[in-house]
């Protein structure tokens, strides 16, 4: 069945839009994907050990020394690119330095979609053909819970000491044994003053209720960002919220939806209507807006006083990866502040590496002084990370959110 599943999946996914965080499988997608899920197994056979503790992922024999190669799947437009040659300078330098060739594939368009693609392989205990990829926090939590990702050998990643302390102690991966951050960003509110009549949009309440914005507001399909922002506006803590808090936020959102306030739920395709003014205000991610502001400096971006969500996309090494050591060498390389600075200068998200700021201050002061790229302590203190969910919670919450966003 696997061959067939792959074909069906590829056909379904090939119609997706290739932008970061866009959520579109093809028209036949649902049916083709449902097929792919058929005959699903129980707990993954890659996992060794049983019981209630999270299973640990099985390792393949490491071919790193004989094959100087690493396969890295990442989000589109998420690494530095030389505009003239279309080469990726930091990857070229890595290969020159270590002799390890990097197969860099931009096939990670959406957490859910990517998961649907690799899950059948991981569940069958097969190699996914990838040695490392970058998943968002909550997806990392799920992958760890299901035993689909391997523990790092931190001995191969001495530079991990450069990772920002605030990102090292995360609830879903205590001590960062399985995952290390690649880039981070905030979700906040973006608005186009031309479409709001010059009005500022500064709070979630205003976004959901201001009649001036009626029918011109978009929210995010990422449940953790949308519901997270609303829960924070209701004074709840994202690290410790309860079922009741979550449901209260859903009710609040439902009220706004039924009132016709909300136009839609989007991945990062909110950028075009925001720039054109068809969307007056929306929930938005930092890196996107920084790039939009380069063309239209009038666009406003606000991290609500009640709190913004902070998320990271993280390196993980999947079970049965063939070049684990090479992947670790690659991760180590990017935790050199000089290397990370090159990436951040291009992608405009937040660097997880200490010392990036100092390098950027010399190389590109305009980027270094942008608080959305190099946030200060006060900004960071105003952000929260959505807590990890149990399998039952995840099912319950995402069902409630799906009925809101697509129901």
């Amino acid at each position, binding site marked *: 069945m696997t061959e*067939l599943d792959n074909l*069906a999946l590829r056909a379904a996914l090939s*119609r997706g*839009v290739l932008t970061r965080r866009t*959520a*579109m*499988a093809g*028209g036949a*997608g*649902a*049916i*083709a*994907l*449902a*097929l792919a*899920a*058929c*005959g*699903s*197994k*129980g*707990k993954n056979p890659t996992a060794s050990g049983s019981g209630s503790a999270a299973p640990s992922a099985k390792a393949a024999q490491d071919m790193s020394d004989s094959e100087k190669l690493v396969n890295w799947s990442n989000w589109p437009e998420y690494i530095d690119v030389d505009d003239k040659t279309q080469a990726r300078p930091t990857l070229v330098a890595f290969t020159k330095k270590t002799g390890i060739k990097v197969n860099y594939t931009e096939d990670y368009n*959406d957490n*859910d*979609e990517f998961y*649907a693609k690799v*899950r059948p392989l991981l569940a069958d205990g097969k190699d996914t053909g990838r040695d490392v990829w970058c998943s968002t926090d909550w997806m990392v939590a799920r992958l760890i*819970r*299901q035993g689909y990702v391997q523990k790092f050998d931190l001995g191969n990643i001495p530079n991990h000491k450069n990772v920002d302390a605030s990102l090292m102690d995360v609830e879903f991966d205590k001590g960062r044994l399985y995952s290390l951050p690649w880039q981070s960003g905030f979700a906040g509110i973006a608005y186009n003053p031309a*479409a709001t009549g010059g009005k500022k949009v500064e709070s979630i309440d205003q976004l959901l209720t201001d009649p001036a914005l*009626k*029918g*011109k507001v978009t929210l995010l*399909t990422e*449940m953790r960002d949308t519901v997270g922002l609303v829960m924070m506006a209701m004074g709840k803590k994202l690290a410790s919220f309860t079922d009741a808090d979550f449901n209260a936020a859903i009710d609040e959102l439902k009220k706004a*939806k039924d009132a*016709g306030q*909300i*136009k*839609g*739920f989007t991945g990062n*395709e909110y950028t*075009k*209507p925001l720039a*054109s*003014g*068809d969307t007056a205000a929306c929930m938005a991610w930092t890196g996107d807006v920084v790039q939009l502001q380069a063309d239209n400096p009038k666009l406003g971006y606000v991290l609500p006083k009640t709190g913004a969500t902070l998320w990271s996309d993280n390196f993980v090494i999947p079970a049965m990866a063939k070049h684990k050591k090479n992947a670790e060498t690659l991760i180590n390389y990017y935790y050199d502040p000089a290397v990370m600075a090159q990436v951040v200068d291009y992608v405009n998200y937040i660097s997880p590496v200490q010392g990036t700021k100092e390098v950027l201050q010399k190389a590109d002061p305009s980027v270094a002084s942008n608080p959305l790229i190099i946030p200060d302590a006060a900004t960071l203190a105003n952000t929260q990370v959505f807590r990890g969910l149990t*399998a039952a919670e995840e*099912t319950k919450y*995402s*069902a409630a*959110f*799906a*009925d809101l*966003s*697509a*129901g």
Partner: protein
Amino acid sequence: MSSGSAVLPSAGRPPARRARVNWVPYALLLPGLLWLFVFFVVPMITLASQSLQEGDVDNGYTFTGNVAVYGQALQNYWPQLLRSIGYSATATVLALLLGYPLAYFIASRRGAWKNILLVLVIAPFFTSFLIRTLAWQTILADDYLPARFARAIHFTDLLQVLNLSENSSLLSSKFAVICGLTYNFLPFMILPLFTSLDRLDGRLLEAARDLYATPRETFRHITWPLSLPGVVAGTLLTFIPAAGDYINSKLLGNTQTVMIGQVIDAQFLRVLNYPLAAALSFVLLVLILSLVTAYVRRAGTEELV
């Protein structure tokens, strides 16, 4: 409804078959049947089985024959199902109204013109479905001419009165979704219509004129009945994919225009409720099949095709 068949001389009874079985046709059919089996029958069975399983992604799914999921699917998502049928039916009628005159026009051209016009009909297929739909986002955007013009002539007010739009925009409305569906599936309507109309025997029209039929009568008694196979094929080719489509409602609609495809996508990819997604797919399939069966019976295509 079907005076078409009376026009042609009926063929005599076919000669009695010889008793020996000829295997060649079956051998020729084999690849097609295999294809159907692997890519249609097997998926259908797995889909049906999936819909009757229970469990979750972490612990796997086991077959329990849980029929209740169909009740749940219908009870929770009947509005989206009905909406999908309504939108696609409207789009089909619009496509027929737009497509018929165009197909007739193309069929009545001579030589090179005909080919050029046909290529123009097919031309949109050279770009991806998604890109074409995204282009509509731009076309209907607030700041562009169509929306401004629509506001100037109070067309947008009319849309609001008809409950086809929520505000003074064209985009993000029922109107936009139905327009998108009509546009995207229009070629599937035009091509079969063209094929039917192109085969129309001009001598029949001449004969009608000789018998003092008005153009309207000629259309009613000759052209329309003879083009019915094209009409039936075109409406089916438009209605069926439009009912399952969700790109148009996702990109051009708002939170009140969600179609069933969007629900299936969300249940499958985000909620990971595979049984419910499978059940919804099946419900949609059965619904479309029964509507199509009723329609084809009424249209009486057995005699026409």
